C-alpha cells in the first residue's frame, strides 16, 4: 500500500466512533436544468430535470422516490450528494446548508453518502476490498492506521461478508456481494444520510431481498436516514416511511406509502400502480386475459 501514504492521523476520538445518529435531510426548492441540443444549429434549449423539488426526511426514516426513467430521480440524488451543482435551491443536512453557488462545507461529503445501482461500475476493479472500504476513512482522516484496519474488518462483517473477502477483488464477488461492499464503503465514513440510487434493481430477486433486509437492519441499529430511489413500487411501498412520486422533475404526489396501493390520487401515480405487474395470476389485468374474462362473463 505504499502508493497511498497514510493521512495525518488525528482521529480516533470518540466523536466519530460511537456517535452514529442519523440526522434529518431537507431539500428546499431544488432546480436543475440541462442544455439539450447544439447552439450552432439553433436548437439549443434548456430542459428542467429537477423543477422546484422540496423534501423533508426525518432522522432515522426512509423516504422513497419513485418515478420512471428520465423523471429526474437520479438527478436529485446527485444534487443532494453535490455530484452536480443545482441552478438554485438548498440541501440541508445536520445543520450544514448547501446552497447553489456556494462552497460545500467541509465534511459534507462525509455526512452524505451514495450507493449506486451498479456496483460493478462503482467499485475500482484494481483495488482489493480492504482498500476500497478503507479509502473514505483515509481521505477524511477519520482513524489511525491500526484503527482503520480494525474498522474495515468490522464493516465487512457488518454487511455480511466473510473475513477472507478483504483480500479479494470486486470481480471475485457476485452482484449482491458487490453491493454489500459498496454499502460497507458508504458506511465507512460514518455518514448521517445514505442516498440509495436504485440499489437493488440490478440484482436478482432473491438477492434484492437480502440487500433490502440488510439496509433495514443497519437503519434499525444506527438510525441512519435513507433516501431510496427506485422504480419498483412494491419495494418502495414495503421499505419506506414516506413516498414521493416524481414525474418530469416535479413531485406530483407525496405522503404515506398507502398512496401507492390504496389511495393514489394523481393520474401518474395511478398509471404506475396499474402498470405494476402483480405477482399473482388471480389478479390478472393484461388485455388478453381481460378479454377472456369478458367472454366468460358473456
Amino acid at each position, binding site marked *: 500500500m505504499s502508493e497511498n501514504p497514510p493521512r495525518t492521523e488525528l482521529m480516533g476520538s470518540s466523536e466519530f466512533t460511537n456517535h452514529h445518529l442519523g440526522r434529518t435531510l431537507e431539500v428546499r426548492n431544488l432546480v436543475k436544468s440541462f442544455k439539450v441540443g447544439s447552439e450552432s444549429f439553433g436548437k439549443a434549449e434548456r430542459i428542467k430535470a429537477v423543477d422546484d423539488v422540496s423534501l423533508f426526511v426525518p432522522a432515522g426514516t426512509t423516504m422513497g422516490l419513485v418515478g*420512471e*426513467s428520465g423523471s429526474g430521480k437520479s438527478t436529485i440524488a446527485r444534487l443532494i450528494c453535490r455530484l452536480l451543482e443545482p441552478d438554485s435551491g438548498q440541501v440541508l443536512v445536520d445543520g450544514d446548508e448547501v446552497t447553489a453557488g456556494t462552497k460545500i462545507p467541509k465534511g459534507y461529503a462525509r455526512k452524505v453518502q451514495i450507493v449506486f445501482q451498479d456496483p460493478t461500475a462503482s467499485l475500482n476493479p484494481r483495488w482489493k476490498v480492504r482498500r476500497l472500504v478503507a479509502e473514505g476513512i483515509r481521505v477524511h482522516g477519520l482513524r489511525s492506521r491500526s484503527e482503520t484496519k480494525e474498522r474495515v474488518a468490522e464493516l465487512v462483517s457488518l454487511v455480511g461478508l466473510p473475513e477472507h473477502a478483504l483480500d479479494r477483488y470486486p470481480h471475485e464477488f*457476485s*452482484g*449482491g*456481494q458487490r453491493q454489500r461492499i459498496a454499502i460497507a464503503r458508504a458506511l465507512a465514513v460514518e455518514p448521517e444520510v445514505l442516498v440509495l440510487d436504485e440499489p437493488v434493481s440490478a440484482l*436478482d*430477486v*432473491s*438477492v*434484492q*431481498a*437480502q440487500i*433490502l*433486509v440488510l439496509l433495514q437492519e443497519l437503519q434499525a441499529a444506527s438510525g441512519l436516514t435513507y433516501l431510496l430511489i427506485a*422504480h*419498483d*413500487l*412494491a*419495494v418502495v*411501498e*414495503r*421499505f419506506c416511511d414516506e413516498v414521493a412520486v416524481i414525474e418530469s422533475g416535479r413531485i406530483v404526489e407525496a405522503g404515506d406509502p398507502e398512496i*401507492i*396501493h*390504496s389511495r393514489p390520487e394523481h393520474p401518474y401515480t395511478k*398509471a*404506475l*400502480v*396499474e*402498470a*405494476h*405487474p*402483480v*405477482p*399473482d*395470476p*388471480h*389478479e*390478472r*389485468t*393484461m*388485455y*388478453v*386475459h381481460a378479454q377472456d374474462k369478458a367472454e366468460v362473463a358473456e
Partner: protein
Amino acid sequence: MIDTPLLEVNDLSVRFGSVAAVSSVSFTVRSGEVFGVVGESGAGKSATAKAIIGLLPQSARVEGSVRFRGEEIRGASDATLRKVRGAGIGYVFQDALTALDPVRKIGVQLIESLQIHKDVSRKEAAKVAEDLLGEVQIKDPARCMSSFPHQLSGGMRQRVVIAAALIADPALIIADEVTSALDVTVQRRVLDLLLKVCADRGAAVIMITHDLGVVAQTCDRVAVLYGGIVAEEADVFDLFDAPRHPYTKALLQSMPRIGEDVPFVPIPGSAIQVVGKLHSCPFAGRCSYATQECLVDVPPVTTEEDGRQYRCVHALEPVS
C-alpha cells in the same frame, strides 16, 4: 398430426467450456399457449432459448433434441435453420438497439425479413411491413419505415423488433426478457401488445423473464429454471398457489408485494455456476430443506397426474 406439440425440447444440455449452463432440460410448448421460462441470472434461460434456434456461438456444446412441429432442428443444417428462424420461430431480443441494424432504415430491415421467407415483391412487402407497424401501435408507420433505429424511443424500438419477429408469420415467438429494460408503464403496453398480436395470429409464446410479476400476468404454464435444470414445471395458477419445489416457494417469498404486510424473506447465498457435470441438486446449498440425499445426485423428475413436474426429493405438500 394434431397431437404433435409445437415444440418439444428433450434432454437439452448446453456447455460453455467446463461450465454447464443447461443440464438436461425438457419441456413442450403447445400451439397458441404462453409458456414462461423464469429464473435468476445464470439459471440457463437465455442459453436454452438460443439453443432452440441454434443461435449459440460455435464454442457452445449443445446436446439433446429440439423438435419443432415434429421435425428435429437441433444440429440441423444452416439452410434448414434459416427456414425455421423467422418463418417458424420468431425471436424477440432483449436489447432492441442491438437487434436492429443501426445504419439501415426500419423499412428496409422489415422488408428484407419478409422477402427472405416469402416470395413477394418489394412493394407488397412494404405494404405488409407498414400494416404490421400499425398493428403494433406505431402511430405513424410510414414515417417509422423511413427512420433509423436511433431515432425511435425505447418502447417504439421494442415494438419494431416485435414486428420484425412477427413479419413472416411464425407459429412460435421466443420473447427473451423483452421488457426488462423498459419502464413499467411502457413494459405494460409492450407486453399487452405482444400478447394481443400473438393471440390474434394464434402464435405461441415462450416468455423468458426473471420477473415473477410478468409470469403471473402473462403465462399459461411455467418452467422454473435454477442452475441449468427445470426445478419445477406447472400451470401458472398451481405454481403460484402451491409451489412444490422449495426454490419456487423461496423465490415467491422473497418478493415484496404491494399492500401485503407479510415480511419478505431473502434466500441466503447467491446463484451457483455449475462447473463440470451437475451431480447434486443445484439449489441444495441455499435450501432450508436440504439433506445429504440432495447432494448424492440430481433429483429425478417427478410427474404428477395433471402433468405437473418437479425435481426435488423433499417436495412440498400440495395445499388443499
